[in-house]
């Protein structure tokens, strides 16, 4: 049986998007009252929940704390029901640890940690439903949660994936596209400065294609930053309406 046709001759992808179009993004901040900051984000069918605590005193051993900046602690997990195949996911398996580490690196580049020496910021992210681009959804959700918690950052961190299908870069891959072969990369961008916080790619890619792919991912990230910005502003408006009287 023929595999899926990822990009039709008319330029439409499996789900009807064009090559550069993103999936529909919906997000809400302050979803939990207890946490210092929280956000729920849907990027197509990928759904992520992010919760932020801190900055607070370093828990556990003192030795972990840094005298000149805050420590960022990230924990990533996936819900048992998040993928098509139901699977028990032990806490801290190799994949999750790797993802946690990537998130930590991403946010260390964005959060102004030097403002909070000897303290700690906790970011917990959970994927509730996975349909491609887990990392990007986590980053975007966590960004919103950090904003919600009022932690100062250099800029929004926006992440997006991009992949290659027959010489055309596709932005924001869904699961079918990710598993349909071809190389994909995940990129986290600080849109205003254009600095890259993290770039990750697992498979081989020819050098000639790299620039085009990064370009596509960056454009997508910039698109996302607008959406995130709108979410934050809208939330602010709602809150200010509530607190006006």
């Amino acid at each position, binding site marked *: 049986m023929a595999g899926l046709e990822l990009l*039709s001759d*008319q330029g439409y992808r499996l789900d*009807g*998007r064009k090559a550069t179009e993103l999936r*529909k993004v919906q997000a809400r901040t302050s979803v939990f009252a207890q946490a210092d900051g929280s956000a729920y984000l849907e990027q197509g069918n990928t759904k992520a929940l992010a919760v932020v605590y801190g900055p607070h005193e370093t828990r556990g051993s003192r030795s972990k704390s840094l005298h000149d900046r805050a420590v960022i602690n990230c924990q990533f997990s996936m819900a048992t029901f998040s993928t098509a*195949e139901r699977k028990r996911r032990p806490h801290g398996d190799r994949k999750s640890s790797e993802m946690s580490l990537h998130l930590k690196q991403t946010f260390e580049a964005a959060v102004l940690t030097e403002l909070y020496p000897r303290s700690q910021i906790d970011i917990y992210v959970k994927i509730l439903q996975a349909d491609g681009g887990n990392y990007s959804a986590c980053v975007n959700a966590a960004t919103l949660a950090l904003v919600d918690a009022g932690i100062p950052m250099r800029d929004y961190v926006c992440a997006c994936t991009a992949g290659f299908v027959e010489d055309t870069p596709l932005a924001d891959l869904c699961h*079918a596209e990710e598993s349909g072969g071809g190389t994909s990369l995940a990129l986290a961008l600080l849109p205003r400065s254009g600095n890259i916080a993290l770039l990750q790619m697992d498979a081989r890619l020819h*050098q000639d294609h790299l620039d085009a792919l990064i370009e596509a991912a960056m454009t997508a990230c910039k698109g996302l930053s607008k*959406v995130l910005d709108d979410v934050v502003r809208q939330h602010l408006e709602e809150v200010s309406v509530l607190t006006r009287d």
Partner: protein
Amino acid sequence: MLKSKTFVKKTRAGGVLKIVREHYLRDDIWCGSEVCKECKDEAPVLQEDACIESNLCSYPHYLIPDTNVLLHQIDILEHTLIRNVIILQTVLQEVRHRSAPVYKRIKDAIHEKEKHFYTFTNEHHRETFIEREPGESANDRNDRAIRVAAKWYADHLTKNTNGGSLKVVLLTDDRANKEKAEQYGLTVYRCEEYIKSLIGNPELVDRLALKPDDQNEIIGSKLLFPEHLPLSRIQSGIKNGGLLQGTFHANRDNYLEGTVFINREGEDINEVLLQGLQNLNRAVHQDVVAVELFPKERWVAPSSVVLQDDSPNDEDAEEDETENKLKGVPPDSSVLKPTGRVVGVIKRNWRPYCGMLSQSMIKEATRHLFTPADRRIPRIRIETRQAANLAGQRIMVAIDGWPKNSRYPNGHFVKNLGTAGDKETETEVLLLEHDVPHLPFSPAVLSFLPKMPWSITEEDMKVRADLRHLCVCSVDPPGCTDIDDALHCRELENGNLEVGVHIADVSHFIRPGNALDQEAASRGTTVYLCGKRIDMVPELLSSNLCSLRSNVERLAFSCIWEMNHNAEIIKTRFTKSVINSKASLTYAEAQMKIDDTTMNDDITKSLRGLNRLAKILKGRRTEKGALTLSSPEVRFHIDSETHDPIDLQTKELKETNSMVEEFMLLANISVAQKIYDEFSECALLRKHPSPPPSNYDILIKAAKSKDLDIHTDSAKALADSLNNATVRNFPYFNTLLRILATRCMMQAVYFCSGMDSDFHHYGLASPIYTHFTSPIRRYADIIVHRLLAVAINADSTYPELMDKHKQSSLCNNLNYRHKMAQYAQRASVAFHTQLFFKNKGIINEEGFILFVRKNAIIILIPKFGMEGTVFFENKDKPSPRLKFDSEGPTLEVEEHTFHMFDKVKVTISVDASNIQHQRIRMALIEPVIPGVSVPVPESEPVAKKAKLDC
């Protein structure tokens, strides 16, 4: 952004997995029509004046075929008359799942601008997307989607043409669908109804594929074949080992027999024999089928009889006796093969077939049997009203289906190729049957050619070595226009020699990935037929810009060695260059210059140097065990590496032939080493595996019969024993032996170095080898050029070049094309040989027995370099007493015993009784065996020098 679009979730349940996919609906998908004012389509495809003259629709209209019409009537849709067709995404996706070949063809049609085929992405259009209703089957849902899209078009066009006359016509052969569409207010016709209403093209009607509905009328109700199992049962059968999956190969000589090659590794059985129509169960050559194995007591031996399905074209006189024809063969228990029957077809691999019509006995009949040229394909029943016109014509026919109550598959007429026996027609048939792409290059391909007038630019000069001052010349067969190699040799100041091989720089003109490159990659090789050349690249390149003609500046890729006078390489250098050849010589001219002691110009000196070095190189190569093999096709110059005849004109080999060849081999080996060193994972190389020892059995036996030993443990041993194998008073013996040795060899193949570990080239006795020297006529060389260019930093790389899987699949295509080109070449020679003998009438000639078979001897006529068979069994004569001994091998016919290499005299004539399969017939004159041999023809024609009229 997608904010404005609503979206619907589409759930697809399969097994236990629940897959949830997003499905976006858009409002920016245009209708694609020129007339529409609402849609903002920049380049509308569908014409305003969409006129196909029809009795049913007198207004301009667009056609919307449903899935089954597209699948079965693709031959109609491809016709130039059919234009302005809307292909719905729903239809296209269904076709994609059901038939890859049809999908490819419809995509080609969509890409063709003149066809005005438009793909409407209805599944993502906000107004045409529908959800599957509870209880609705997937098929019904798709039919409804097609109707909804058609309705949308009807309304949309009426609205936007201000009540103009433009309409859409839905074509469907499904009765229920048609009724529903009519209720829905659509213009809908059956495909047949619509095609028959067309004015001025009766030929189209013949292209109509027969539908299951109609088939009942044609055939009797008698069930002839067992039912095929449904796919689900086949799959579970294969999984639990009850059934085997494999590719069906029909037997060329016996239509009641075939073999299924099991393509799964780890099975102990890799071939299953099938005998009888019932057990073949409608499998057609190359189909992927599921077979059920019989218990051991029902296993049979392959019959060695020749059976051809030549029963008269009488519809229902189904021969029940056919099954009995096989039973007459006494089983020999030692050769019983696993036997079974086909229980289902997993994938049909039907293609359009060339052949001829056998007219029905009934004069007015419209149903006729079609006999394909390929004897492995069964006859096909077609319906046509132009039978009288098609008599004696080569035609093309496609199979539509093979119902279980029909003796033959049903098909339809595709096109007429021309009069049978006509040189043009036969060449066309030959090309089609061997899958040689031979259509003129498309405008898209031609658009990537350099613009004329072309000249070498400053830019080119900057990055290339300027070798215009060197005394370079080319040596080729006479009349050669695609010169891809040139040579030079000069003495250096330090006393060493500098030898250069300069190859046309084709990869400079053919850039990776463009249409020109893709076309060349698909063609793979230039095909040389008698008097015709099918180019791999357009003529502007092959015969002009890339051809290294004399006294013009040309771009080249040069391989330059510094050698001492012992032909030992001191230094190798590769560079892109510019050369200016001083002379284009033929082999004979070059030979003359070398031999003429009075000539002392630069070219001659260069040639003499090359010749001297070549002899040393050749000696060294032979010492290592390179084989010199023979082919009986004496008319041809034989490429020592591929054993392909590469040239039709040269009849005698000169020293200069082997001089050029020697340096080409050296260049190929040097380049192979370089690209492998640089790219160990993705170098494109060529290997020639050593044959399994059993291949040599016949050679050893044959030599034994003359009391000679042939050692085959190494190439070197073989070469030596061949050199020593001579028989007194029989000078041709050695050549015969070499011809036999050639037949024992394996095929040389291209491969990707990252996918294989055995690189050895047996015939050339070289540990590594590739093709670098003929980029004009072989695509492999273009890839090798690109690799080498990257290795020396002369060109940039691209992803596919470094991908070993992509390169491996390219190699598969190249190997396939080379094989088919070789077969086509042989078929072309055979056809021209027949023409030659047809004109001469019956002649007699001396020959040697090359092989001895059970009921025949195969004879080689050295004078014409051709082979023929003398059969001792004849349909209309009682067979003589035959006794075959496989040890000798010898064949006893009455009182005479035939051995290999016996000298015989035969008559040669052309048997034209079967116009599709004309062949050379030989009959024995000497030795005289009463009742078997024939008398010497009365008027003995004057022996003329063999010359082909091609």
